């Protein structure tokens, strides 16, 4: 669900095909019948934006038919934990949880906590200035929980207490019946029940099942909660930490996983360590206290953090200067990409560097981004070709319509050609957390340079310029270790030397570290990313290992290197029962060897090697020592998977079905229509269509094709790919074509409250209309690869979409929004904005 795996992840999809060949049932639940659906045993059509209703229906089915994996649920999840008596559910408050503050538009999460815990308080969203309480404050998997030792204060192992998580879950999803699912999603009751049965069968001691998702789940105003719903299903079925189980986040690019681990994100440092905030963590002590969990592996936060500072600043970072904490940059707001674009539009952000991104095509409401770029003083674009984000000032729909005039744009644009992956050494981190090293095949041509080259030499020059600076603000630049060896005529930095620093060493001896358990909080180790520690163990580039699978074991442990500790399956302690025995012979993976007194198995155990299954933590235990021997989820403060999330999420401890920002329908369950906590930006450049608008009656969804990559910079310029998908098109059903007069092979104009685009018409049964809430709704499919540059050009689908974001991760809602469609090409020149304006007026 939420993914088109065959088209967008064809190499990984070979394993899905293998599973099908071995008799697995593969379901594709999607608005369109895609190349993925064609390969699956079953396809279920649903309305874009209705997945939580669907998955919530599965949760209800599991609970209603007593199909959960009882032992797993009782021991490994927080199902028995009793929640604060003040907690109220969306069922009680018609679409809101307790703690909603209508003025701030945010939740106070204190009533979502475990009952009997002393520390209540807000969590997450450090950037917006909440004051975190002890042991809280991370959006990442429960750094903590405010637990004094690993156990929640109040539990009911029988799962009968009305306020235990299990009962709350039951109540929360009780109305998500197959009939409601069918009515909301547009699938049939029979198909849905068949799906539920198949899912339930992939559970228990002998069997497992997996979910594969991609941005079809993420890109919604309630995107994080889509994935949360799947985690609930997989916890109930006992499908986490076991072979063949899991929730697989399919990545849209070879190293998207890598770019969150060692982030290009604004709010985290490498290894998911929170970025300091202007208000939240004023000083070193409060930063440490807020992020160091008393229990679980996040109890070692300081070791990870100090080792990072030693990697950055070497001998300049000392305990006496708090490892230079006070000089670190701070975030002070949302600071995400969309927020930044709005600040450009307002004139407060003056300069911008774009690398590996094409917001003028790839970001929603692309028009707004182009207008924003035109307000900058300077813009640097580093890419392999001159993308639309670099050419907006002379070649864009706004130049054509006269809304922008080249001579009036003051932005100074610097285009710096980038080297392709074949022209540099480096590693990719894939969706399985596998770091795979690749070597340069050919020298970059002309002025093309790798990112590593660019940032290294930029840093070197800045350091040179500031060498004599007395300014306090330049302390960090001056302190930065920046001594990577270079080679070749262009002085390319040695990529392996960077990987060595990422992996970590002892400061004194330079000896390579074995892994993150060797990290120290006293400054005696350096490590650029704690989760990657050990990837250069023994001085060997572990990520460059390429032993074929037929020469090694079941998990292919000697192919590349997986973080952390070359562990191929996270939380794999859960593949054994509470006593440490495999759940079954067929599904054995990691188990307790009583004779040797250690965990062993097919993979690196994700548990302390000698911690017995019967281990009970003493009262004064800290960090991982506070996690019991039968609690596999060692990064959590209580060692369990969370069915109910007491903190870390902005929009609720349980997922709830909400309609998208723009939708033709009311919420079937609550009078609260959409996610109340979503981020909206109502302004003239970003108008929203009113719910149920008759001017924009259809559900649009955007997607990729196998033949192109994201915003097209890397593929619309390649002849062999361009000829395979040479034009922007839209997919519509024969019924919609008839209703609106569209002709197959002709042109269509598709319009939203933002603008209008044109596309060729592909009439196909693969995007059928649906019956939702007793009426028929049509969906329109829009690939989003095109722009004004390259061999094949066309209008950008993202021009149509709005900016409304998920509150947890600030991602846009690309997968469901409202449009209208008419036959023929769109108006040109100034007639285009007039056309859009007239429609907006008609919509009111």
């Amino acid at each position: 669900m939420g993914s088109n795996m065959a088209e967008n992840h064809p190499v990984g999809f070979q394993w899905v095909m293998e599973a099908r060949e071995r008799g697995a049932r593969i379901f594709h639940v999607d608005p369109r019948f895609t190349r993925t659906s064609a390969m699956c045993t079953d396809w279920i059509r649903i309305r874009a934006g209705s997945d939580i209703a669907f998955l919530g229906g599965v949760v209800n089915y599991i609970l209603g038919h007593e199909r959960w994996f009882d032992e797993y649920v009782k021991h490994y999840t927080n199902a028995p934990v009793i929640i604060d008596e003040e907690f109220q559910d969306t069922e009680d408050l018609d679409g809101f949880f307790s703690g909603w503050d209508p003025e701030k538009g945010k939740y106070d999460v204190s009533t979502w906590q475990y009952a009997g815990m002393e520390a209540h308080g807000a969590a997450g969203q450090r950037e917006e200035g909440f004051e975190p309480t002890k042991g809280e404050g991370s959006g990442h998997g429960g750094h903590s929980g405010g637990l004094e030792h690993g156990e929640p204060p109040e539990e009911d192992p029988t799962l009968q207490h009305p306020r235990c998580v299990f009962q709350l879950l039951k109540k929360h999803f009780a109305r998500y019946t197959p009939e409601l699912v069918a009515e909301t999603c547009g699938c049939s009751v029979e198909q849905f029940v068949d799906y539920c049965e198949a899912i339930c069968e992939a559970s228990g001691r002998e069997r497992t099942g997996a979910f594969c998702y991609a941005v079809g789940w993420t890109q919604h105003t309630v995107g994080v909660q889509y994935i949360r719903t799947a985690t609930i299903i997989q916890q109930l079925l006992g499908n986490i930490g076991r072979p063949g189980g899991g929730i697989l986040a399919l990545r849209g690019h070879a190293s998207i996983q890598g770019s969150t681990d060692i982030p290009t994100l604004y709010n985290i440092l490498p290894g998911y360590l929170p970025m300091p905030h202007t208000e939240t963590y004023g000083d070193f002590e409060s930063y440490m206290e807020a992020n160091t969990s008393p229990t679980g592996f996040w109890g070692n936060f300081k070791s990870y953090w100090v080792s990072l500072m030693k990697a950055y600043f070497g001998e300049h970072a000392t305990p006496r200067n708090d490892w230079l904490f006070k000089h670190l940059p701070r975030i002070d707001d949302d600071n995400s990409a969309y927020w930044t674009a709005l600040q450009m539009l307002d004139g407060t952000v003056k300069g911008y560097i774009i690398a590996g991104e094409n917001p003028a095509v790839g970001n929603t409401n692309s028009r707004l981004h182009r207008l924003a770029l035109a307000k900058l003083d300077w813009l640097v674009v580093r890419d392999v070709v001159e993308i639309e984000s670099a050419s907006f000032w002379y070649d864009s729909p706004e130049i054509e319509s006269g809304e922008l005039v080249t001579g009036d744009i003051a932005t100074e644009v610097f285009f710096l050609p980038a080297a392709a992956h074949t022209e540099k050494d480096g590693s990719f981190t894939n969706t399985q957390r596998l770091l795979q090293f690749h070597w340069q095949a050919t020298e970059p041509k002309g002025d093309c340079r790798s990112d590593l080259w660019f940032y290294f030499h930029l840093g070197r020059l800045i350091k040179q310029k500031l060498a004599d600076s007395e300014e306090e603000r330049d302390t960090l630049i001056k302190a930065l270790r920046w001594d990577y060896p270079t080679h070749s005529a262009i002085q390319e930095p040695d990529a392996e030397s960077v990987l060595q620093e990422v992996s970590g060493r002892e400061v004194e001896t330079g000896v390579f570290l074995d892994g993150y358990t060797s990290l120290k909080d006293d400054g005696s180790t350096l490590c650029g990313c704690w989760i990657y520690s050990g990837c250069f163990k023994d001085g060997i580039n572990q990520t460059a290992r390429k032993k074929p699978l037929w020469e090694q074991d079941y998990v292919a442990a000697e192919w590349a290197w997986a973080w952390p500790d070359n562990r191929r399956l996270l939380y794999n302690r859960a593949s054994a029962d509470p006593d440490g025995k495999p759940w079954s012979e067929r599904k054995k993976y990691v188990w307790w060897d009583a004779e040797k007194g250690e965990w062993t198995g097919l993979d690196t155990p994700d548990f302390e090697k000698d911690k017995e299954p019967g281990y009970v933590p003493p009262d004064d235990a800290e960090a991982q020592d506070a996690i019991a021997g039968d609690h596999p989820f060692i990064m959590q403060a209580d060692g369990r998977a969370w069915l109910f999330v007491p903190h870390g999420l902005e929009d609720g401890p349980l997922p709830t079905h909400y309609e998208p920002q723009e939708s033709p329908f009311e919420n079937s369950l609550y009078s609260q229509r959409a996610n109340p906590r979503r981020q909206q930006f109502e302004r003239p450049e970003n108008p929203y269509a009113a719910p149920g608008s008759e001017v924009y009656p259809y559900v649009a969804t955007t997607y990729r094709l196998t033949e192109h990559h994201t915003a097209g910079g890397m593929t619309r310029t390649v002849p062999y790919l361009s000829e395979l998908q040479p034009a922007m098109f839209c997919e519509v059903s024969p019924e919609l074509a008839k209703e609106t007069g569209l002709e197959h092979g002709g042109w269509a104009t598709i319009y939203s409250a933002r603008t209008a685009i044109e596309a060729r018409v592909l009439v196909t049964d693969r995007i059928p209309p649906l019956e939702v809430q007793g009426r028929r709704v049509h969906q329109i499919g829009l690939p989003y690869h095109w722009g004004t540059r390259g061999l094949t050009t066309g209008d950008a689908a993202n021009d149509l979409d709005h900016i409304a974001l998920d509150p947890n991760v600030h991602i846009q809602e690309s997968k469901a929004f409202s449009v209208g469609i008419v036959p023929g090409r769109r108006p040109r020149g100034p007639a285009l904005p007039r056309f859009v304006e007239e429609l907006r007026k008609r919509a009111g």
Partner: protein
Amino acid sequence: MLDSYGTEAQERVGFFTDTSVCIGCKACEVACKEWNLVPEDGLVWTGESYDNTSELGANTWRHVAFVEQNEPLHGDREVDALRWLMSSDVCKHCTHAACLDVCPTGSLFRTEFGTVVVQEDICNGCGYCVPACPFGVIDKRHLPRRDAPALPLITKQEDGRVWKCTLCYDRLKGGHEPACAKACPTESIQFGPLDDLRERADERLAKLQAEDWNGARLYGRDPDDGVGGFGAFFLLLDEPEVYGLPPDPVVTTRDLPGMYRSAAIAAGAVVLGVVAAFVGGSR
């Protein structure tokens, strides 16, 4: 078939394209063009499902067909009965190859691997092979020539020579599998000794039939068919015509010996008649 190669003869190799696992990614088309330097030949959006390549030709040696049908993949389910057939087509490397029979220059030849290949430095662009192919595979390139002409015969701008799949003859010589098979992520395109592939295909067909796949059949596997069996054969999920393939291809030169015989007899009769007329007339 390969007797003339003596000790250099190799085991006959080919492709088994199993369309039941083809995901329509077109990696074969791209890999083929990349490896063989086949030119891009037009950015034309066809509206034929996701197929913007349309057919095999001088500039397309692998072509993935996309067929949308309102039928179930398995059994007789009616709800949302849709299937999307995808199949990567290629030169069949026929056992009895008419293109090779009619080539006057010897440019087309059978390799030591049993495959059929055009030698571009010998082809004079006569085009006899084009109508000879029962599948419409081989084709003249109507694009500007890229390299200097090997022969002074063709000096105009247009290439004019015929081109088709070589089953990556150069890669085979180097001990590698063809580019398309190498790139295929799901092993839809399988390369190997033809006898092995036929065995594998038989097993595969039996499995699909046991699993109730609709329309599963082998196409071109049979050595007794009209072209003596394909060197590159297929597992299809419907009639060959659905994929744009001829249902019962016959080597177009099959009747040539007979035709020559008939022509010789007719010519002889004419000669005899004329002689008789003269002889008779002299009386």
